[in-house]
């Protein structure tokens, strides 16, 4: 089974190629069925590999399959190699598992779309790229996947490219990601220059054995973090993620919530020994950026009215928690939160998609309300997702967020405070969303005249292909916390499982005040979640306080518009000046040289008279002169 690792990315790739070739013939819904089957089959293979790894002793849980030598150039030897170890298999499990559910969901959601097969073609290509990213054995294979998921993200955000906003959002995502990719490239160059290889094994070994200088390790770690900031939407590069909601909702659930955006967290975990070998302040930078992002995005989510925008900012905020964990040395907690977040955020996004579907493409929460009566399954599953993200025990989000906050407390109490504040706001804005969408009065008929045909329709529950994944994911969102329960060392299943990968770098907080009083912190987390929910209910359900939603927060602290204003104003002028410099000075020099050379050769051209006899005369005179030269020098 372990040698079948190549099959994991090969299956979605096959699906992609089949849809490229026969997509139009397959049509709706068979292209979707094919894509779903391929992803599900890939999940089965990953599950098989998982159980086989589980049967091995923990130090042997690592298997490298080299498919072929990719770039054999002198000192640069890069293999197309796949790595099956606990970390990559954990990632692959939830990428293919949640991916298959979202594929199934998309069959229902995209039904009737003119470009139905194309959508599934991109989805399968995305799954393939994502699997290459997580299973690559060296940075370059990961980078291949990294760029692949970026390209798929671009295709899928601007899937409805006839809408200007969707096309613009796609471009924005792509350009912002390029900024991050630059960091990743520089990190690869530095790693290769310092270690002479790009394989994780080699780089991490160099970092663990101490042969990697601390300053180089810091450079690599910080550059990787720049890449991670771009992909995982952290300050200051998060601006593309909220706009990415222009894509179809399954895309938001799969790419912009569950899988692709977590690849930055994955990469930093994979390269944890390098981060460990770096100067301590680099971890502090990561933790601080993560905590600030978590709080910053949570404040924005409080005032959003678009159902998907709330979830988008919430995703940015939760990713901030993961980086807070990475920076605090809690790699297991980061992966734990990544997995539980994938469960509940995919659930929430698909729930919102179900609402949007049922509301005939209405996304404004102010025009919803009381939907629990017409969409019972969506409502119940969404509420489970809400409890999970708000941090209510025993739902999965509670355990993972608490673990992060525990490590944050042990590491830096100020960042813990910021994290708690963000958790409070999370509970608050998610409750607000649930109340606005599913409770209160039905407001969907208020705008009948504006909406035309939309307003007349009563919302309806979605088909089974959409509700079935919701039910499965809500089950996972409830029970996901079982992976890592804080009761005793034996119930830290995830930690034991990931131990071979992260054991060198995982922070040890045993004996700190935080560890000794973890039940106190756990209780505090429950109180905070309850407080957030209670406050939100008081404001939005009972109407006891007037809702405070400053325009500043609705405008996302004017961060985005300030950047646009800066780039469009002084930035634009600077670009124009550079362009003018280029056109007149640089091009002027180049063109000037060309003109002068032309003029000089114009003079020389006259020699070519075309008269054969004058050529003969010149040859004759030349011969005589050469002869005379040699004779006078006495050579002959």
């Amino acid at each position, binding site marked *: 089974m372990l040698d079948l690792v190549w099959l994991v990315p090969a299956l979605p790739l096959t699906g992609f190629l089949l849809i490229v070739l026969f997509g139009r013939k397959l049509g709706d819904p068979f292209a979707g069925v094919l894509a779903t089957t391929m992803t599900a089959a890939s999940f089965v293979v990953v599950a098989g590999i998982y159980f086989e790894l589980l049967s091995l002793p923990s130090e042997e849980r690592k298997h490298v399959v080299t498919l072929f030598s990719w770039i054999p150039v002198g000192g640069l030897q890069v293999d197309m190699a796949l790595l099956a170890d606990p970390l990559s298999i954990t990632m692959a499990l939830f990428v293919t598992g949640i991916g298959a559910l979202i594929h199934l969901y998309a069959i229902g959601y995209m039904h009737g779309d003119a470009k139905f097969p194309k959508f599934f073609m991109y989805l399968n290509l995305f799954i393939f790229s994502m699997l290459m990213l997580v299973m690559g054995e060296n940075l370059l294979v990961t980078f291949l996947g990294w760029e692949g998921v970026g390209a798929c993200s671009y295709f899928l955000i601007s899937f409805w490219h006839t809408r200007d906003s969707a096309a613009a959002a796609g471009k924005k995502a792509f350009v912002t990601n390029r900024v991050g990719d630059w960091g990743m490239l520089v990190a690869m160059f530095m790693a290769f220059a310092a270690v002479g290889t790009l394989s994780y094994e080699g780089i991490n070994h160099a970092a663990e054995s101490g042969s990697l200088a601390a300053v180089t390790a810091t450079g690599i770690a910080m550059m990787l973090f720049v890449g991670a900031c771009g992909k995982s939407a952290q300050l200051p590069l998060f601006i593309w993620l909220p706009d990415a909601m222009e894509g179809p909702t399954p895309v938001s659930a799969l790419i912009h919530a569950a899988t692709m955006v977590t690849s930055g967290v994955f990469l930093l975990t994979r390269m944890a020994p390098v981060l460990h070998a770096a100067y301590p302040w680099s971890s502090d930078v990561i933790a601080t950026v993560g905590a600030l992002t978590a709080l910053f995005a949570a404040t924005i989510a409080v005032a959003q009215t678009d159902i998907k925008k709330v979830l988008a900012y919430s995703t940015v905020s939760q990713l901030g928690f993961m980086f807070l964990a990475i920076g605090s040395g809690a790699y297991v907690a980061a992966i734990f939160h990544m997995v539980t977040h994938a469960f509940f955020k995919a659930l929430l996004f698909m729930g919102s998609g179900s609402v949007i579907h049922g509301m005939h493409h209405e996304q404004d929460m102010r025009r919803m309300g009381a939907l629990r009566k017409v969409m019972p399954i969506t409502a119940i599953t969404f509420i489970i997702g809400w409890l999970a993200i708000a941090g209510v025990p025993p739902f999965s989000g509670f355990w993972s967020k608490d673990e992060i906050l525990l490590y944050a407390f042990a590491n830096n109490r100020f960042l813990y405070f910021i994290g708690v504040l963000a958790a409070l706001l999370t509970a608050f804005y998610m409750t607000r969303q649930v109340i606005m969408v599913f409770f209160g009065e039905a407001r969907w008929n208020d705008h009948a005249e504006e909406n035309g045909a939309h307003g007349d329709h009563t919302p309806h529950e979605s088909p089974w292909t959409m509700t079935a994944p919701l039910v499965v994911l809500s089950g996972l969102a409830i029970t996901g916390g079982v992976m890592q329960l804080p009761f005793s060392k034996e119930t830290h299943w995830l930690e034991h499982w990931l131990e071979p990968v992260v054991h060198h770098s995982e922070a040890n907080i045993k004996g700190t005040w935080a560890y000794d009083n973890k039940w106190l912190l756990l209780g505090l987390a429950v109180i905070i979640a309850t407080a957030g929910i209670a406050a939100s209910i008081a404001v939005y359900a009972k109407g006891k306080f007037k809702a405070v939603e400053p325009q500043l927060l609705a405008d996302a602290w004017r961060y985005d518009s300030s950047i646009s204003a800066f780039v469009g104003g002084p930035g634009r002028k600077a670009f124009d000046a550079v362009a003018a410099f280029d056109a007149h000075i640089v091009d002027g020099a180049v063109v000037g040289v060309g003109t002068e050379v032309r003029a000089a050769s114009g003079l020389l*051209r*006259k020699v*070519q*008279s*075309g*008269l*054969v*006899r004058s050529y*003969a005369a010149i040859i004759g005179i030349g011969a005589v002169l050469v002869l005379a030269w040699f004779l006078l020098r006495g050579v002959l």
Partner: protein
Amino acid sequence: MFSAIQPTSTWYLILAAVLFGIGAFGVMVRRNPLVMFMCIELMLNAVNLTFVTLATALSNINGQVVVFFVMVVAAAEVVVGLGIIVAIMRRRNGITADDLSALKG
């Protein structure tokens, strides 16, 4: 009565030089392509004469071998050259070499 005067190598070399000079002068002065062509042949044969003379004088057969090569190449050159000249003559009646200056810069 002429037996006293024995022609030496020098004579032949001078003759070859004179022939070469006439040929070169003709190429430069005449405008008729056919005549220019014949002048070139004259120059080639002047060189041939030099080769043969020196081969005899130095008792080295190599010079005479080269002459055969020159004659073969000259024959091939006559075929091609005459073909070109006849073709040009057909297209433009009675042309001089100076009129064929289409390739001037």
